[in-house]
């Protein structure tokens, strides 16, 4: 027993980062309160849990997708206080006191959100993996109000990658909801 304790002590002492890291390398989980799609959730989360992982792994809201996990693909796009962000690049603990909207919260009592309907009508996807992020991003873009032309849409949707290449139909679907005339 003594030798086991000795080894444990040695490992602690020899840790290259001792003195920098807290001795307890697993900080206690904190209660994190998140408001998602109008419902309040209390979760016990470690501070390094991203908003994306909180949604998918702890709340089982798997509509929000993990693509690259580095803010390069946009599959994880959600709306926070009406603004689109990459949920992979923020911590859940940092998004308390905000209103989070995911793809699961878009449809209302009267059915699908107009963008969801337009994506179906325009066949704006192939595999569908990027679609929740595309739709949440388009909702955010329309809220922002800076897109006036087809080129604006393409530029302001560039944070959402579609590996199937469904871009023309995605732009068509968004234009229809924005009532932009693509032939204008």
């Amino acid at each position: 027993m003594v030798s086991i304790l000795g080894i444990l002590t040695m490992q602690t002492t020899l840790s290259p980062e001792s003195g920098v890291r807290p001795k307890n390398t697993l900080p206690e989980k904190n209660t994190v309160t998140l408001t998602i799609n109008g419902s309040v959730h209390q979760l016990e989360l470690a501070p390094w849990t991203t908003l994306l992982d909180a949604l998918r792994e702890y709340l089982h809201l798997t509509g929000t997708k993990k693509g690259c996990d580095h803010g390069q693909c946009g599959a994880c796009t959600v709306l926070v206080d009406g603004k689109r962000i990459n949920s992979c690049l923020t911590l859940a603990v940092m998004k308390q006191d905000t209103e989070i909207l995911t793809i699961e919260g878009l449809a209302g009592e009267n059915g699908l959100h107009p963008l969801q309907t337009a994506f179906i009508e325009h066949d704006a996807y192939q595999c569908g993996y990027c679609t929740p992020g595309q739709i949440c991003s388009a909702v955010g873009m329309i809220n922002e109000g800076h897109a006036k032309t087809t080129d604006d849409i393409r530029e302001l949707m560039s944070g959402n990658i579609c590996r199937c290449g469904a871009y023309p139909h995605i732009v068509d679907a968004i234009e229809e909801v924005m009532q932009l005339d693509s032939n204008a």
Partner: protein
Amino acid sequence: MTNFSYFRPGDLNSAIGDLITHEGAKFIAGGTNLLDLMKENVERPARLVDINQLSFNSIEETEGGGLRLGALMTNADTAYHENVQNRYPLLSHAILAGASAQLRNMATNGGNLFQRTRCYYFYDLATPCNKREPGSGCGAIRGFNRIHAILGTSDQKPETACIATHPSDMCVALAALDAVVRVTGLAGERTIPFADFHRLPGDEPWRDNTINPGELVTAIDLPAKGFPQYYAYIKLRDRASYAFALVSVAVALEIENNRITDARIALGGVAHKPWRKPDAEAMLIGQAVSVADFQSVAEALTEGAKGYGHNTFKIELAKRAIVRALQQAAKLEPTP
């Protein structure tokens, strides 16, 4: 990512106090670059001090007739702010040329200044990098260096070699506009001219800027002169949107009676910091608008440029981009 503790202070003093009393602590604001680097284990803070409750999230008029951009204001809110769009359109354009709409909604003005390089070798823990691990060497100089620097590099000694570039678009415009960075630390508040905020790699490539430990950027001041009439921001990259610059050029001109009375040119994607050369800019003062002069300025601005193989094309690209940006700013050529 490595485990860490988290603290969300309510005021500036407790933010700075907490940071300096916890070894290995880092501030987090938007987190778009820091969390990415933490997932790659390039950054391994022991503690994150979340400054989002501090009150630096507004844009205000300064006494000198300029604008004070709060450090916690997002890049998107800054770029689309009426006063920025009308009085500093160069800054607005530069911000909107960077990242994606989602990232601009998260990233803050203060955080933009602290972006780390996107050098592949900085991100790759299996290779040497003097910026990530001082003294270990530079993987880029003899590696794939298409995106790397051509000006102001450090390449004489292996233990300090670095040809990384600063990735920001916003900072290129801020450099051209002679912005001033306001920081607060234990010793109180001080201001840093933008040209002195970032540094060249020199003998310490691991230091990106001149800020001291425990100091926090609270605002960026824009001088009254915003160059709303004659300006251009050109960004050249491998795809039309959402990519870092291979070369970018910010130009701000003042022209009266077809004579140039003030000229600012800053380059992005070519050096460890936004690249300016006041001597080259001065060549234009008092001159009539002329493409021949623009070509001379482009030569002067890129004097001493050095390629490392894959990135050698940037030297000619930068010269042509400078001439094009000057032509656009002077309205000799329509802005696309």
